[in-house]
């Protein structure tokens, strides 16, 4: 009886999965900001635990737990980095650590931090497609995966001193950031659902911001401001979409968000293109490679953010200035503020680099605006009788609009299908490589499994074999 009472009391105190996961997630994200790697590792572990708590409480726990179990890997990598952070300074202080071992530890630490950040940013093949799927918590499922690339960038930004100094790790990370920006932009363009596209845009922008950090283009606070402008706005939009598509309710706020998205993309890409294309350590191929995701993500954010169709019979009174308006205005301001801070901090832009670096985002945004306007006009003309057969003699203008709209939709769909195919091909290729490596690893370690068959004779044979080896080894010396 006493035991039953104890269990009941425990159950009464046990918080439900939603609140427990929320608390763990909040605490985990907060701990990512702490400079100590130990705290960061704990934060990443809490984040993984939060997803696990939510996943195990869903209606399909098997599927959800398996889907989000990869989140332990970044945490694991960070624990390793934290352990090394404890070891290395002591070895350096006492002067007893041999150079090779300390170098190896530093290399491992940088690798571990970058691994964790890259995996959260969907920059490694192991976890690449997570943004295609909603999160495990029912109430905010579409929004939830958005916190992972944010956590990845915060982690890489906060601990940049641990990995930027190791040239090989930094270079590999920069290449992976770029590949991720490409793939994420492709996916954002290819997906029809606006929410999914937004999630992929977050990854693309975070990866571009990662290039900013890896290449040390601007000071850390500037890279944070530029990332915040781009990704903060997208995250807010994603969250607001869950509240009746608030950022697309009405012409003013949708225009405001479109401008904010465009400007933040432009501000984020400008210093990267300037430094890589025209800076001291210019790298033309790298700069050209950055242009593609910039153009594509700007196109998506400008052309796809369309005003939501009003289906309500009775309008609710809405205040002229909402939180959405303020957030859009803030997003509009943060990007330029970052560039001003960079300029005041010594970031220099010279002719012709400065205007040229603006061009990809600028031209993409202009083209997207033109096409958007064109589509609206065509849609407006055909809206009166979309399903009626149009007589060419009576309304040639309407017929022309119908044809143009159909052609535009055809081209658009082909491009989207192409980007989907390309994304699937690349990720499939990555997945095959990973599977082959895993198979190779399993083949290599399968003899270990054979040692556990339970036959005592095998044990003795093994012992005799090793003893013979012990006898033969000295003879070979």
């Amino acid at each position, binding site marked *: 009886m006493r035991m039953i009472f104890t269990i009941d009391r425990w159950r009464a105190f046990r918080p439900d999965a939603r609140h427990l996961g929320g608390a763990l997630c909040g605490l985990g994200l907060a701990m990512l900001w702490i400079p100590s790697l130990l705290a960061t590792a704990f934060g990443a572990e809490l984040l993984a635990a939060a997803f696990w708590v939510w996943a195990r409480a869903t209606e399909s726990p098997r599927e959800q737990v398996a889907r989000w179990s990869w989140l332990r890997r970044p945490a694991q990598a960070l624990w390793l980095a934290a352990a090394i952070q404890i070891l290395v300074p002591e*070895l350096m202080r006492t002067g007893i650590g041999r150079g090779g071992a300390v170098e190896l530890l530093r290399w491992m630490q940088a690798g571990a931090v970058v691994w964790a950040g890259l995996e959260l940013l969907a920059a490694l093949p192991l976890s690449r497609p997570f943004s295609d799927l909603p999160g495990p918590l029912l109430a905010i499922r579409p929004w939830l995966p958005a916190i992972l690339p944010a956590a990845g960038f915060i982690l890489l930004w906060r601990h940049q001193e641990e990995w930027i100094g190791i040239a090989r790790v930094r270079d590999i990370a920069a290449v992976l950031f770029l590949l991720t920006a490409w793939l994420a932009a492709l996916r954002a363009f290819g997906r029809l659902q606006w929410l999914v596209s937004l999630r992929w845009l977050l990854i693309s922008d975070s990866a571009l911001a990662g290039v900013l950090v890896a290449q040390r283009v601007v000071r850390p606070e500037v890279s944070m401001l530029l990332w915040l402008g781009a990704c903060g706005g997208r995250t807010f939009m994603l969250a607001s979409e869950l509240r009746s598509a608030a950022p697309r309710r009405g012409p003013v706020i949708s225009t405001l968000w479109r401008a904010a998205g465009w400007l933040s993309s432009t501000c984020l890409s400008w210093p990267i293109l300037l430094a890589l294309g025209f800076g001291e350590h210019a790298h033309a191929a790298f700069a050209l490679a950055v242009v593609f995701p910039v153009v594509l993500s700007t196109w998506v954010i400008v052309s796809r953010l369309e005003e939501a169709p009003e289906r309500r019979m009775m309008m609710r009174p809405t205040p002229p200035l909402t939180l959405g308006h303020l957030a859009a205005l803030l997003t509009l301001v943060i990007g330029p503020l970052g560039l001003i801070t960079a300029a005041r901090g010594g970031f220099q832009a010279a002719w012709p680099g400065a205007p040229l670096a603006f061009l990809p985002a600028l031209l993409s945004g202009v083209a997207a605006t033109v096409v958007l306007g064109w589509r609206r006009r065509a849609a407006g003309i055909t809206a009166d009788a979309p399903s009626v057969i149009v007589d060419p003699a009576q309304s040639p203008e309407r017929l022309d609009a119908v044809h143009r709209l159909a052609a535009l939709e055809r081209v658009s769909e082909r491009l989207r299908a192409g980007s989907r195919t390309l994304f699937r091909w690349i990720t499939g290729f990555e997945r095959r490589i990973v599977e082959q490596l895993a198979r190779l690893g399993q083949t290599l370690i399968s003899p270990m499994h054979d040692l556990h068959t339970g036959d005592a004779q095998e*044990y003795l044979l093994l012992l005799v074999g090793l003893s013979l080896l012990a006898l033969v*080894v000295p003879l070979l010396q």
Partner: protein
Amino acid sequence: MNGLTSHPYVFSVSATALGLACAGMLLTQETRRAGWARAMSPLVALLPLGLVLIAAGQVQLAWAALVTALVIALLARNEDDPLHSENALKMLWVLVPALALSWAGLELLTLATGTAYVQEQWAVLQLGLDQPFLWSTALPLSLLAGIVLLGAAPFHFWVADVMQGARPWLAPLAVASLQAIGARWLDARTAGIEAFPAGATIAQGLMEIATLVALIGGAATLAMQRHPERRVGTLASLNGALAMCTMLGRPGSAGPVLDPASGGWVAHTVLALTGAGMLARLLPVSTGSVSIAPTVYRRHPFVTALGLYSVLSLAGVPGTPGGRLWLEVARDLADSGHSWTLLALVIAWLSAFTVAMRQLRETLGVPTRFAPPSANVPAVVRATLAIAGTGLAVLGIAWISGGGPRG
């Protein structure tokens, strides 16, 4: 606290006493099958194992044979349990030939040098009077028993077998005492070898290769284990590899592993194996996907948490005494410049940590609307989990206040 923990043997005595107390409590469960006197009689046989754990740094090598024989006899005694008998047979087939081969190595060394004293053997061999063939063959053979007794891969199978097949009152003490005597074997057989550089080179090379194989082999095997008991056994095998790592940088000095003043490794091994081994018996075999939590967690969540603390500590998870032990060993390896072994240690630690966290998640399972089974887990089992977990927590606190497992 400092005054208490600086007293020699305090850790190893306390941990061994707790381990024996748990074994005694668990033996009371056996009284249902046999009479009281017959059921409790193995406790007397467990006392020598406890003695070896307390004084592992001082005992003679002959104790290795005695402890092995005692463990095999205790396993063979329970003829009703097929797993016990099978374990006894396996131990007989593995440990006895290993001891025989090593004894042959010792005799060959005695033959080559004309003395049975280790320090004198190195001095005689340094004179270079004999051909190196004899001693360079005898030296690796003489170390073999230590590696096998530590349960380091590729000899790790017996540890997992004992943890899975032996009765819960015997398994942790048997594994811990055999591992302790294995560490003592390596320690004693390499004492003062630096006086004979050629021999030190061979011993060092052999130990380095053995440690690498132990860590990588243990890590690879651990990832494939599905039975919780075998997971704990393989973690114990990695614990043995840790002891080898400590001795790697300084032949003939087991340092914190067997130092009675700190007693860190022995105390931790006894407590962690007691708690983790007990909990593992209450958990289901891993299927690779989530399922409903086992009864022990649904009925007794706090006690399960203490048991999980033992598992986590055995795996070296940060915040546990085991984590501190792994860190100390890593520091030793970095200090002595063994970069490859350090890398292998990192791989082993990551594997252990991952498996421990997987075990934790599998233990917590998924929530269910159904009420837990009405029957409680036996009180002695819960007491064992609680004692081991609390003991480890106290050990961790003592290390924090006393400067770690080195004392």
